[in-house]
């Protein structure tokens, strides 16, 4: 106790006391700072579904198809609610929120009567509510009634018409739909370079009109907006003519127009050299007119370079552009790096030596927090992973990129579901080809199925991977994973996976599997049979004949037949798996070692009765395993039946089959005679060499 006091005294006396005290500066915090800091502690974790889904096993989607379905059903429910809100708006006006939340109110519809007076305030309101075409109509009315509209308003309206190509801007999609916007919005799928500008549309009409009455400063704004609009919607010829006009009339071109111009350079000029020359000329012009380039300018330059696909000078020029950017004090954004990646690795084989990607990753890891600076930023992760896997084939690089994605909230830089799907597809295809299970499987577990639902190619690669590395413990789990991810159904496209998986199981059965494994594999075979019941083909024919029956006979149909018809109709609605000989043999190979006599024999009989309609025949392996099972069960007649089938199909294993049955001690004399007759009749060489008792 005394010692403690002594120590405490000593510490306070020896420490240097500060002579004065400074109050720390107040740090300005935003209203959501606490939320943001909490958010930074939480990382994306593959254990729970996306936020829009309910956290309940029945309601968690696992396959890609389900995720899309459920997300869009939720969006559909929201739209239905919106419809009700707009249909009965009088019920939704009572407001308790301060400040009031506009999205909880019925969407503001415009009554004709309200806005019958063409007035400037009307125009502003319409423009604020994104009704650009309506605003133009009202503007026309203003001109008719000779009501004065201020210039600011006119030019604002003209700008909007140019930006939106004389149409109303599209409504923002709900977040659930937005994730799938690539599939929903077919316009994106078409060529981005196609010309969509409306000829003689509202924008052009207004342009002609305003041209006449514009003052020089207004002309600048007018011409620049017009050219930007034309270039945005890819109407190149008219844009170039207007630019000629502008140059003749010495109207200065401003930054936005220059940006669009550089971005469309690949449409303006044909060859790569000409494009680059054009870009350089444009940049020189900008310099002469002392217009500072911004991030968008440099990104447009890189975009143009990227569109020159295999250009020898491309990489050099890209590096020069990056240097310029740094000199101007602009930090390259993710979009710039995305373009640089595509420039340095233009094809599948080229670019590996440059080691550009690792350098880019070095740069990016220095940045403390990534921000969205440009609309091109969304392409970075997809491009990086694409090139890392197809071009560099470097596992460490791919993992580095993935770690970078998982750090903080960088996952928001993959803007839609399509790109995310491709990102993970590329990642896993590389890892499955090159890496070891101890490293790959944890990553796979963490991502599948909540963050990423693999497509069929990746599943096939996974099965390859599992079979080459012989991860036996995983085989049975793989079955439940396949079920969960929606790959076991009656569609033809998924047959490959089913066949591939079953061959995998059978290969392990040929080794020395434990009894536990045999039982589990047999269980899997039984599950398949339960899910897709064997449909005898004769029932089909009967159904076909009753539909052809004339009307009289139909009246005489008994109730029993009617019931049968209804049952067949319901059976047809259920998914039917097309059984072929290959699948049947696989199932027999799985069931027979587990001593499941009834199931295997029923499969065999199904094959026999439907031999004409099934595609392949039962293979040797399955027949031999069935025979050995029959032998063990001492079912001699069935064994003889199997041997006859082997004889018919003229398989080489007939010799072994005869030998096997011969050794069985319980054969009666009749059966032995039967065996001998089969041997005599058989055309297979090896069968004759077997000595029969």
């Amino acid at each position, binding site marked *: 106790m005394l010692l403690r006091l002594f120590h405490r005294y000593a510490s306070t006396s020896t420490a240097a006391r500060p002579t004065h005290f400074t109050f720390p500066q107040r740090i300005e915090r935003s209203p959501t700072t606490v939320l943001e800091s909490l958010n930074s502690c939480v990382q994306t974790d593959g254990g729970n579904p996306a936020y829009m*889904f*309910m*956290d*309940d*096993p*029945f*309601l968690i*989607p696992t396959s890609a198809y*389900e995720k899309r*379905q*459920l*997300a869009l*059903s*939720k*969006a*559909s*429910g*929201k739209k*239905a*609610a*919106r419809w*009700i*809100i707009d249909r009965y708006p009088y*019920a*939704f006006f*009572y*407001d*308790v*929120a301060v400040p*009031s*939340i506009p999205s*909880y*109110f*019925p969407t503001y519809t415009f009554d004709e009567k309200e806005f019958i007076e063409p007035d400037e305030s009307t125009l502003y309101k319409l423009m604020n509510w994104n009704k650009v075409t309506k605003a133009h109509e009202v503007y026309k009315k203003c001109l008719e009634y000779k009501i004065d509209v201020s210039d600011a308003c006119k030019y604002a309206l003209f700008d909007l018409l140019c930006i939106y190509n004389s149409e109303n801007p599209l409504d923002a999609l709900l977040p*659930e739909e937005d994730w799938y916007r690539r599939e929903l919005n077919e316009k994106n799928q078409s060529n981005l370079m196609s010309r969509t500008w409306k000829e003689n549309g509202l924008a052009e009409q207004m342009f002609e009109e305003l041209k006449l009455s514009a003052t020089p400063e207004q002309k600048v704004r007018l011409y620049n907006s017009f050219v930007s609009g034309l270039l945005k919607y890819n109407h190149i010829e008219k844009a170039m003519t207007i630019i000629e006009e502008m140059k003749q009339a010495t109207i200065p071109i401003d930054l936005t127009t220059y940006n669009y111009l550089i971005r469309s350079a690949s449409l303006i000029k044909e060859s790569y050299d000409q494009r680059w020359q054009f870009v350089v000329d444009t940049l020189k012009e900008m310099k002469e007119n002392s217009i500072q380039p911004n991030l968008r300018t440099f990104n447009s330059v890189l975009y143009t370079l990227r569109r020159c696909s295999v250009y020898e000078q491309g990489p050099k020029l890209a590096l020069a552009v990056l240097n310029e950017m740094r000199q101007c004090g602009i930090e390259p954004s993710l979009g710039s790096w995305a373009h640089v990646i595509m420039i340095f690795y233009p094809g599948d084989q080229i670019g590996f030596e440059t080691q550009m990607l690792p350098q880019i990753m070095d740069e990016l890891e220095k940045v403390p927090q990534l921000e969205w600076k440009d609309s091109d930023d969304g392409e970075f992760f997809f491009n990086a992973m694409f090139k890392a896997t197809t071009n560099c084939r470097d596992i460490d690089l791919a993992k580095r990129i993935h770690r970078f994605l998982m750090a903080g909230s960088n996952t928001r830089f993959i803007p839609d579901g399509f790109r995310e799907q491709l990102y993970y597809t590329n990642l896993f295809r590389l890892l499955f080809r090159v890496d070891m299970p101890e490293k790959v499987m944890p990553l796979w577990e963490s991502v599948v199925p909540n963050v990423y639902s693999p497509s069929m190619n990746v599943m096939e690669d996974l099965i390859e991977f599992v079979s080459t590395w012989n991860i036996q413990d995983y085989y049975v789990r793989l079955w439940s994973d396949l079920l969960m991810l929606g790959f076991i159904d009656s569609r033809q496209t998924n047959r490959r996976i089913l066949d591939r998986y079953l061959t995998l199981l059978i290969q392990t059965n040929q080794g020395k599997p434990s009894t536990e494994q045999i039982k589990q594999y047999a269980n899997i075979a039984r599950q398949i049979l339960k899910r897709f019941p064997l449909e005898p083909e004769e029932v089909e024919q009967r159904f076909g004949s009753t539909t052809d029956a004339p009307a009289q006979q139909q009246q005489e149909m008994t109730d029993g037949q009617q019931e049968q018809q209804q049952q067949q109709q319901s059976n047809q609605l259920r998914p039917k798996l097309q059984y072929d000989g290959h699948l049947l043999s696989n199932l027999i190979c799985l069931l027979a070692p587990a001593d499941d006599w009834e199931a295997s024999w029923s499969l065999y009989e199904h094959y026999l009765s439907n031999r004409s309609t099934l595609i392949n025949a039962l293979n040797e392996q399955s027949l031999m395993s069935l025979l050995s099972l029959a032998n063990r069960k001492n079912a001699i007649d069935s064994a003889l039946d199997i041997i006859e089938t082997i004889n018919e199909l003229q398989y080489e294993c007939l010799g072994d089959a005869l030998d096997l049955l011969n050794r069985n001690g319980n054969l009666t004399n009749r059966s032995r005679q039967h065996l001998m007759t089969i041997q005599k009749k058989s055309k297979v060489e090896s069968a004759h060499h077997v000595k029969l008792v």
Partner: protein
Amino acid sequence: MNILLKQNLPRYICQQQCYLSTSPIVHSWFVKLTNVTQVNTEAAVPKHTRKRNYPLTYEQRQFPKLIGHTKTWNTFNTSNLRDGKRKAEIVSDDLFLRQFIYGTWHSLFVSELIIKRRHNMVILSGLVTRSIHPRRMYFLIGYTEEILSALLKTPVKMEIQTVENKEDVIFTYW
């Protein structure tokens, strides 16, 4: 409530049970009821049926006198604390929410709706049977969330749990 008074008599003499009624209805000065059905009933306490097959969930089996002991309320809000605001509005909103969910989710909820209020959000929870496809369920979820948010002018979220069928939540037969 009927109290059983056991007189302190030795067992071999009979145990006379004296039924003293404590029903507030009987002793009230203002409401004078005498008919048997009205006087002997109590809220949320069912009488035994002859066949003993009236299903009760666990929550329903905990009669209202146990609220605060082994049973909690079905809504959670701070309106009844000191300086709590909007007591009446919250109660009426709750009644509306229960009726809305009852009418929109046709025979799907097998438990009472649990309403939690956090800041200005309303979170609805409950147990739902799996009698409809998940697609339809998500449609209902999206619809309910959107329309209730628009009505109450507060964000409304649903956090439901599914149960195989109604028999899973039946606790006893009364």
